[in-house]
């Protein structure tokens, strides 16, 4: 009896402290407000032609359709899978079907989900960029809602998420939010259109920021670059230093065409350009470009990127220079200067200067086509070398290119290259 009393006296302060910390963290993620879904709201937005058209434009440059459409599926009907550190998450149906889509949602309920990441189904997984959409103007969210309501209803039911415990338990997201989600008050005035687009609908930081293993934004990681979670691609930093090779006009052109003399977009960025950014108005592209070129460069983190963690870190240059001369120089030039309008320069190119070699290895192994559409109707392609060159030769030539044209110490080994064998459509 006495022992129990002593245990209680010892335990109570710990319990109280845990409660206080929990309460503090809960307040930090926004308190109870995010969980109050405005289901009863009766506010109605006029669906006039102009709002509808604006909503379509905003949904396009926000790239809603790309994530909310399964491969060869009905547009906006959900079902595309996203690999995360916690398992597979499938996008939801945004069509006006009352049961399977968002047809029963009021405009305020939609706005609440966009801003707070909580819907009538509970907290949403942060693969949905609500942190970014929180900064959107009311009128823009309303217009997107009106556009989504105009789509044909689809009764498509996306596959169930396949997540590990405890992430499989939706309420565990409250804990994730307590640890990682810090809502910021919306800027008082959206006087910088470029920043509004980059941070809001563009949600560029989803890929281009440095992230912790939890998926949360790293301190000082805003647009600082890093390996994209759930994907075998490195997203470069977006700041004044990284983008100094572009004028504002060139960068705006790149955003709409996916190509420039300084390099072309492949992989996830090619998809963003193809499905979304090619629709940017010239003014909006210029605004985004001029904002990005003003972002102050963060000190580069000394993260060592490796493809195989246990591989010995030693440079394999070997006959890299010879392989370059024989297979690469015809198009990319003896000094990595490229051929204007056709083949990009390798000197200071994104894949060459990146601390992470993964983009360079993938391009040498499999090549590819930049996105082909109105602003870049007939792109030039990079051939694959996986059949022609051995893993040792690919390691050697990639190290040579990164060291010679990018000033980047490069330690790729044949084993690193072998680990990348097999095209992944991520």
């Amino acid at each position, binding site marked *: 009896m006495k022992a129990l009393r002593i245990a209680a006296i010892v335990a109570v302060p710990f319990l109280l402290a845990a409660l206080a910390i929990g309460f503090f963290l809960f307040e930090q993620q926004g308190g109870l407000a995010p969980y109050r879904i405005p289901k009863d709201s009766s506010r109605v937005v006029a669906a006039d032609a102009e709002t509808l058209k604006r909503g379509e434009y905003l949904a396009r440059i926000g790239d809603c359709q790309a994530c909310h459409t399964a491969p*060869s599926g009905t547009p906006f009907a959900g079902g595309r899978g996203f690999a995360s550190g916690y398992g597979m998450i499938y996008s939801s149906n945004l069509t006006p079907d009352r049961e399977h889509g968002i047809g029963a949602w009021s405009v305020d309920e939609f706005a609440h989900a966009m801003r707070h990441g909580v819907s009538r189904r509970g907290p949403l997984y942060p693969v949905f960029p609500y942190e970014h959409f929180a900064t959107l103007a009311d009128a823009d969210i309303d217009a997107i809602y009106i556009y989504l309501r105009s789509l044909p209803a689809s009764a498509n039911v996306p596959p169930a998420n396949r997540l590990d415990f405890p992430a499989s338990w939706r309420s565990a997201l409250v804990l994730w939010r307590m640890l990682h989600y810090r809502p910021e008050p919306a800027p008082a005035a959206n006087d910088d259109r470029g920043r509004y687009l980059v941070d809001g609908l563009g949600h560029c930081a989803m890929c281009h920021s440095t992230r912790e293993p939890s998926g949360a934004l790293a301190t000082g990681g805003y647009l600082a670059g890093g390996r994209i979670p759930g994907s075998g691609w490195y997203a470069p930093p977006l700041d004044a230093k990284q983008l100094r090779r572009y004028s504002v006009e060139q960068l705006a052109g790149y955003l709409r065409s996916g190509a420039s003399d300084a390099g072309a977009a492949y992989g996830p960025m090619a998809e963003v350009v193809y499905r979304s950014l090619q629709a940017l108005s010239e003014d909006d592209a210029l605004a985004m470009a001029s904002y990005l070129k003003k972002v102050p460069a963060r000190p580069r983190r000394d993260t060592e990127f490796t493809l195989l963690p246990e591989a010995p870190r030693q440079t394999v240059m070997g006959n890299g220079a010879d392989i370059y001369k024989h297979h690469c120089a015809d198009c990319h030039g003896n000094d990595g200067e490229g051929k204007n309008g056709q083949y990009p320069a390798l000197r200071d190119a994104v894949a060459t200067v990146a601390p992470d070699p993964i983009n360079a290895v993938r391009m040498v192994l499999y090549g*590819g086509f*930049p996105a*082909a*559409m109105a602003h870049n109707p007939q*792109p030039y392609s*990079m*051939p694959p070398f996986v059949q*022609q060159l051995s893993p040792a030769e690919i390691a050697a030539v990639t190290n040579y290119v990164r060291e010679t044209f990018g000033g980047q110490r490069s330690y790729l080994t044949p084993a690193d290259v072998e680990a990348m064998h097999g095209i992944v459509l991520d």
Partner: protein
Amino acid sequence: MLYRLALLIFLVALAPHARAEAAADFGEHLAACAACHGKQGEGVQGAEYYPHLAGKPAGYLLEQLRGFRDGRRVSTQMMWYVRFADDAFLQSIADYYAALPPRTRSADTGAAQLTDERRHVAQNLVEHGDPAHDVPACSACHGANLAGLEPGVPALLGLPVDYVIAQFGAWREGVRNGAPPDCMHDVAGKIAADDIRAIAVYLSQQSNVDSLRPSPAGSFVPPKACGSLPHAETAK
């Protein structure tokens, strides 16, 4: 007047040359394709799997490129290259390869050989089909010379053995899909696996010494309706 006429004659004389040059220039865009399909779409000799493309009907090539992009045909490699390409670019690629001269040599069949008896079975299926099982002859749609039919039926001459077998498997399993009615899905399901292999070896051994092009559209009427060729004349 005379001057204008001279200029006109000069320009007309120049036109095919300019067209050929423009086509050669377009080939510069397609270095990624050349790695497996050859610089002139003639295929790559040694360890053959990938089909040659030169001279196939543009309508057929476009339909395949769109199929890879939109998921009707599954090949991770092809999806990787065309998934962010619009119709206009795919059309340019299709037109480019369609205009090149068809390959003349047969496929490098490696160890694949046929006994006389199996060859006879294959040739019979290719030329006469199997009416008892409602299998049309290959030649009924692909032409008596197997060089194809504009605008959408490909040549079969000299295709690699493994490629042809893989396509039959893909049609049977629904991995390669044409628009309904999917004629090749119907046909593939009615031929025994053994016979598919014999047909594939037989076709791979056929050369096209005269570089025959697909027969002109409408020059004969295929016996089966094919949904992938809505613009082609087919039997009801």
